[in-house]
């Protein structure tokens, strides 16, 4: 029996491939329409991961690359749940994050921004959601940084997030922004998203209840993947 199909991805909610304010998308966006496929095993199955694949420290960006001490920056907890569109938790799924350091510099051989590399900060982490779809990372708040699009563009502070779900067609990469950041509204990458409600959904809320007093501040960020259809009645196969 085929796995259950997914709800149609709402392409009006996601950014379009071609978004002229984000210049790199101009030459990298397909011009022909996507060909819509009904789900088969190729799309409705996907890889799985377990605790043999990763180490417990992988979700602690304050410690997972520390050489001589803690990284510089505002200590934060980022936590939340991975849910599907039916509001159900997605358990045991892989969540991977990456980010700039507190000065806005990435540990990447292609990043040449003048802010310094932090010797104690790698800038990536990974974890599996628990049985309730819950995940947590500890890190430092990334800095804003300039990028070439227009001459004077600044990325708001953000953390890149990659999530799997249970089907290859649920695969998602997005970015998490921080409540109150005035750069969000001015960012051409954020503004590839046409619907303000979809943008708001990517802004993590300051979560004082989850802070560790005198230690770390917290932000809550829930991630929603496509939902699976319920099959109370079987589809009638085409042609019958």
């Amino acid at each position, binding site marked *: 029996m085929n796995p259950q199909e997914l709800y149609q991805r709402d392409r009006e909610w996601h950014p379009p491939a071609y978004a002229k304010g984000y210049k790199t998308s101009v030459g990298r966006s397909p011009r022909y329409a996507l060909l819509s496929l009904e789900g088969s095993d190729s799309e409705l199955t996907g890889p799985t991961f377990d605790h043999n694949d990763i180490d417990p420290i992988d979700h602690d960006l304050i410690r997972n690359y520390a050489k001589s001490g803690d990284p510089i920056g505002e200590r934060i907890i980022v936590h939340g749940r991975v849910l599907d*569109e039916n509001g159900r938790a997605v358990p045991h799924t892989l969540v991977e994050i990456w980010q700039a350091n507190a000065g806005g510099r990435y540990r990447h051989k292609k990043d040449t921004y003048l802010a310094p590399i932090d010797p104690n900060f790698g800038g990536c982490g990974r974890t599996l959601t628990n049985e309730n779809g819950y995940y947590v990372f500890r890190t430092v708040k990334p800095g804003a940084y300039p990028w070439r699009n227009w001459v004077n563009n600044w990325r708001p502070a953000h953390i890149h997030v990659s999530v799997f779900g249970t089907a290859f067609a649920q695969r998602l990469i997005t970015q998490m922004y921080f409540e109150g950041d005035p750069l969000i509204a001015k960012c051409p990458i954020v503004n590839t998203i046409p619907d303000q409600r979809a943008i708001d959904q990517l802004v993590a809320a300051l979560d004082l209840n989850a802070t560790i007093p005198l230690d770390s501040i917290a932000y809550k960020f829930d991630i929603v993947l496509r939902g699976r259809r319920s099959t109370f009645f079987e589809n009638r196969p085409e042609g019958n």
Partner: protein
Amino acid sequence: MVQKLDYLKESASQTAGPYVHIGLAPGDAGFDIYRAELGRDITGPNAKGTRITVTGMVTDGTGAPVKDVLIEVWQANSEGIYPGTGEVEDGFRGWGRVTPDFETGVFTFETVKPGPVAAHSGAIAAPHLNLWLVSRGVNVGLNTRMYFGDEVDANAADPVLNMVEQAHRRTTLIASADGTTYRFDIRLQGDGETVFFDV
């Protein structure tokens, strides 16, 4: 007014950006942090079937290589079984991550040739790899498939290939075969634009 539908909306996609390697393939970013990076081995040591090499390049609308792309591969084993749907060889994940050389833009990876798999509505799909591309400038990850040029009959009967209305565009999904090495180029835009799917 009517009752409210209590569905959530999928989180909107955002580009993986130029530094996707930090998160998904840190060795490519230039540092070593994890005990083992995920996706470096698609098949594991026990996979049966024909070992193959796939090489190619992703190009943009001007024809230039997209050197900062990251491709994920998802495939069945040589018997056409996806992990999770039946028994596969111990260690066979069927999933991997591929990045091109930063200088040339050429990617190369090794795997086994998958068997035919079930298509929608009970038909049989020709052997194929499912690919998902992310990079700077790509706002939502792009799904496509790689079919095998030496599977002429199976490709001719494949329901997805046959759904591509303009027959000449089907060739954008078929890798050319040279023994056990397959060449597969992906064009994001322009002449010979690859067929991408909404899956």
